[in-house]
């Protein structure tokens, strides 16, 4: 027996991991060459990437930006010693036509209108989509967009707007810099007035949007807004005197009568008293990406209320209402969009009273809106289904009636859950707008045919398709990234 023992008192110093396990080499070994199969796949992929780029890049980098026709392109490439079909791209066509691909035949002195519209649209969706931006920031952005817009036209109104918006922007910028979030919260707690909710602008935007794009009298959108006001007051008056349901019926009825029969007269009369109109642009001048975006936005905004109604109808216990809604949704979802567009182009006028005639873009807008509504209904239904039953029961236990429960409890939550779905419906509709080229509208894809019918550019294929594909990709990709971000954000709220 011996009492000699060995106990280590201090730890061995840590050794650096072998060089092959860390750094770039380690990463490469781990992620690219972790086994024979993996190594083979990596090498094959690298070869595929190399060949694709080797074929594509020389074609893309071709000095033909200034060419005025396909023949000039061929000459430029010929001078460089490149021959044949895939010698190089002919970018001259993009230089000459990109504005057309963007705006179609919209009058060139009015390009500011679509630009401002889409700028304002961005400001209008911010409070809906990004609720982390402060009210001050939102109003500031609006003032800046209006300020920039005023430089597109002249006259007294421009100056008034310019000064007002500049002052507003300066004031908001000052408060933004001067006080930070905490200070501001304190001020509000002490009774400082909050800025109005920017959602007010978002609600007004659907009326500003068509007015800016199509032009005409400002009194038409004002009349349209008045319809809501009239409807509301009729409802309020009747709800007090006769009864809630009578008001609920008479209010919308009054609004509909106003919209159908009186708005035109109202706008005409007011216009003759105070003329407030901008140059009208016919919808057949719309084209290119502007047309795609217009169709997409109108369809989504228009389909949202319709989709909510359909989704509620589909969930309701009323058998006939449910059957009608299900029938409509399944019918629209069961047929391809192109057949609906054929209906728009050849039949919609036949369904209307004799003598009615509204132009093809309006008809397409109607059909695409109906199409989107069916999909929107399913998205909203998903949102409704995702709400826990407790919410419905809670609303009931508070004594809210059906519409109050929907308005105050159910819809705000269901719609919030549905936003990613709504965004992906929008992406889908936006991509599907290319189908209108088949019925002869000049969206980007339709314009490629018109451009190739120009003797100078007859025979150009890849450059145009590539340009359009890249633009669509940029737009849709950023939208889908945003929607994914939103999904993650919403998920963390629940778990």
């Amino acid at each position, binding site marked *: 027996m011996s009492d000699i023992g060995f106990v280590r008192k201090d730890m061995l110093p840590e050794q650096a991991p072998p060089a092959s396990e860390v750094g770039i080499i380690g990463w490469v070994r781990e*992620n*690219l060459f*972790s086994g024979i199969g*993996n190594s083979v*796949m*990596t090498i094959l*992929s*690298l070869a595929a*990437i190399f060949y694709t780029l080797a074929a594509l890049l020389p074609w893309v980098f071709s000095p033909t930006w200034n060419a005025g026709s396909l023949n000039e392109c061929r000459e430029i490439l010929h001078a460089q010693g490149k021959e044949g*079909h*895939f010698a190089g791209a002919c970018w001259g066509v993009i230089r000459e036509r990109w504005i057309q691909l963007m705006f179609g035949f919209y009058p060139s002195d009015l390009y500011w209108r679509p630009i401002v519209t889409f700028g304002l649209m961005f400001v209008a969706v911010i409070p809906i989509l990004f609720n982390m931006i402060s009210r001050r920031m939102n109003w500031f952005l609006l003032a800046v967009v209006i300020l920039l817009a005023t430089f597109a036209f002249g006259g007294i109104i421009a100056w008034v707007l310019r000064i007002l918006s500049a002052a507003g922007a300066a004031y908001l910028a000052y408060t933004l810099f001067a006080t930070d979030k905490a200070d501001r919260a304190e001020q509000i707690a002490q009774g400082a007035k909050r800025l109005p909710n920017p959602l007010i602008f978002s609600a007004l935007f659907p009326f500003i949007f068509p007015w800016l794009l199509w032009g005409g009298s400002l009194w038409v959108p004002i009349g349209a807004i008045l319809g809501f006001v009239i409807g509301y007051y009729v409802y309020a008056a009747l709800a007090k005197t006769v*009864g809630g*349901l*009578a008001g609920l019926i008479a209010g919308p009825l009054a609004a509909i009568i106003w919209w159908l029969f009186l708005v035109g007269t109202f706008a005409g009369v007011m216009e003759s008293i105070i003329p407030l109109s901008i140059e009208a642009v016919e919808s057949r001048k719309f084209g290119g990406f502007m047309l795609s975006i217009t169709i997409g936005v109108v369809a989504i905004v228009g389909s949202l209320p319709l989709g909510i109604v359909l989704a509620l109808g589909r969930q309701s*216990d*009323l*058998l*006939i*209402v449910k059957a*009608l809604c299900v029938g409509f949704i*399944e*019918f629209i*979802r*069961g*047929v*391809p*969009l*192109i*057949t609906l567009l*054929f*209906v728009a182009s*050849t*039949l919609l*006028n*036949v*369904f*209307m*009273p*004799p003598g009615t005639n509204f132009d093809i873009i309006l008809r397409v807008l109607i059909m695409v809106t109906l199409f989107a509504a069916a999909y929107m209904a399913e998205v909203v239904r998903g949102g409704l289904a995702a709400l826990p039953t407790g919410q419905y029961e809670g609303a009931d236990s508070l004594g809210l009636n059906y519409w109050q429960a929907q308005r105050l409890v159910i819809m705000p939550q269901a719609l919030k859950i549905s936003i990613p779905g709504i965004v992906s419906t929008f*992406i889908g509709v936006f*991509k*599907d707008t*290319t*189908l209108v*080229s*088949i019925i002869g509208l000049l969206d980007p*894809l339709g314009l490629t045919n018109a451009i190739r019918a120009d003797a100078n550019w007859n025979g150009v*294929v*890849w450059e145009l*398709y590539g340009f*359009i*594909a890249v633009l*669509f*990709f940029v737009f*849709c*990709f950023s939208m*889908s990234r945003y929607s994914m971000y939103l999904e993650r954000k919403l998920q963390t709220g629940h778990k």
Partner: protein
Amino acid sequence: MTTLTDPPKESFQLGMLIYDTRYRSMTIQIVALIGFMLLIGWLISNTAQNLATLGKEPNFGFLGEPAGYDINQRLIDYNSQSTHLRAAFVGLLNTLLVAVMGCATATVLGVIIGVLRLSKNWLISKIMTVYVEFFRNVPVLLWIVFTMAILIETLPAPRAFRGDNPEATMKLFDTVAFTNRGIYIPEPLFSRGLGDISVFGAFGISIDLLVILAALFGGIYAARKVTARANRIQEATGERPTTWHINLGLIAVPTLIVLVALGFHLGYPELKGFNFKGGTHMRNSLIALWLALSLYTAAFIAEIVRAGIMAISHGQTEAAAALGLRSNRIMSLVVLPQALRVIIPPLISNYLNLTKNSSLAIAVGYMDITGTLGGITLNQTGRELETLLLLMLCYLIISLSISAVMNWYNESVKLKER
């Protein structure tokens, strides 16, 4: 003393239709129904009035008249003297053909890409991500036009195969020709064929095909019996008899015998005159549409598959491993059956989308039903209302049948709660 009195009789008042919840829902429904009827009536009366002014009263008589145009790809007999109805039917079969081919390919591709996106190989998973994002975010119509342009521009024309020293040659031991008019592959021929049987006198079905299918399905049925028996033995004794060679024999031998009896041989394509003759011609329009639709839809399916696999918690895999299952059995017995439940509902809607998107065939000149009934027939007869109604009806029936079949399948794999 008390007297029993009847509860006071409620007298029915008109106001109760609105204020009494017992009647209110009925009232709302009837109002909705009347409103709907009025709307439909209004539309129909407008339509009737407008069509009467145009002198085009609805009439389906045109379907019986000769179509007058030719269709290149036809699965049943058709020539320019056949009726418009038959042309529509040829188109319908073409739609179904591309839809079935597209769904199958898109599923296979989608599953592969979805699994590869989860690969440990960084490069592969990145490439797959790029693929998915590229295809999802560019309109499908653009992809169809693109694919067609690529096929036309990169593959050799048949005339390049001509001459003593041709620029292009047939591939795979001179059996397959890739041209920019399509792909010519060997076709099955029967030297002792049994002919066709005629169905309703409208189109023929090859008896040879029926006999082969009968032999094949008979073999599969027998093989399943053997497997079932093997399962019983395994349950009883724990030993599983080897069955794969019996199964293979049961499936292959009868089919082979039938093939030999019918005098099966392959007909190879050959360059004659302007085109390749013989063999089966898969036209470019079909290939472009099929490829574009599959590649586009595969990107969506890949996402669904990925989400489905990721939805299965890792504990399932570990538990299966703890039971001693090998990794491919873990996949087939544990992960996939559970993932399927998540995958199938969105997969259905993607199949539906693919079928509906096949109507874009018109962009590459593939004669599907939109191209025949909704295209040339509509143009030549000017019967918009009738043709579009029929067209929508066809698509509606296809869509509803696909959802019905897939929903039935979904029911059968659903988690059975006990």
